[in-house]
């Protein structure tokens, strides 16, 4: 299972990568990962991940506990996370908060 999916699972937040067939009617997360291969001059021994998680809360039902659980999941993995200001999408009637973090994977 993908590392980000594990994080979300540990935080008990439903979510997935990027695409949703149907708008969930609960707090959920969508994430994307920018991957840069790296390593020595003749091989790729490393993958540098820059991950963005967008945490969505229903406008009528804010969910601060989801933030706490997500941050605890980050902290448990010693991930240095960054949280951006929450913004409102009035059309979707959702709050969105973006979390970003980076990690390096050895392949």
């Amino acid at each position, binding site marked *: 299972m993908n590392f980000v999916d594990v994080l979300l699972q540990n935080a008990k937040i439903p979510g997935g990568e990027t695409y949703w067939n149907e708008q969930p009617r609960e707090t959920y997360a969508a994430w994307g990962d920018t991957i840069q291969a790296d*390593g*020595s*001059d*003749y*091989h790729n*021994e*490393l993958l540098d991940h820059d991950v963005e998680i967008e945490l969505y809360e229903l406008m009528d039902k804010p969910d601060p506990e989801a933030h706490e659980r997500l941050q605890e999941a980050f902290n448990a993995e*010693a991930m240095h996370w960054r949280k951006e200001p929450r913004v409102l999408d009035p059309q979707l009637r959702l709050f969105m908060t973006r979390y970003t973090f*980076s*990690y*390096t994977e050895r392949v």
Partner: protein
Amino acid sequence: MSELNRPVRDKTSVPIGSGRFYLVKCPSRTMPSFAELVALCESENLIGETTGGATFNYSCERHEEKDDHGTLSRNVLIDEAVSLKGGLFSWGLDAMADLISTGRVEEADNGRFKVLRIGGLDNDNEETYVIVFEHTDPKYAPLYIAIMGTNGAGLTVPFARNNTSKLEPEFQAEPHDKGGTLALIFEDRGTQTEATASTTGDQPADNGGAEPDSGTEAE
């Protein structure tokens, strides 16, 4: 005229790409032949995978004398140095020991621990190494830079959560023949065809920079 396989670089060539570092102890302080230097470039002698390529550096110091009117001058070379710097992406304790003259690797507790001891001036092993950097390019003949020397830059080994721990040795060249040669840079054009194979010119010159003296070895 020999028939050779690979084109050498000329003024239209655009060198690009990295290479690999190979290192062997050289107690005899004799620079191996060109063919032996090429043969050194095998996995057994690889220090580790390279990162950030290599930097060859030649520096010199000149002294200039002028008359009081600035009409006559003489400019002479009084010192020169060669170094070869590189980044090592992958390495172990044995590689570190080769880069630190007081480093020695041993095992303790019946092999449970592998230990690198560093320090103690009396432990200077006074080893000299042959260091070969092999730069390969699919378009041209492989290019080799060979020096005899040691790592003269010490070692700084960062350990960071978001970066690899690279070694960045800088090998300082020592003269390896009576002529004071500090470095060899050569291209391997490949093997000659049997019909044209020659027995000459296979050794680094040991003649102070004059015409190649076939069959001699550097001291």
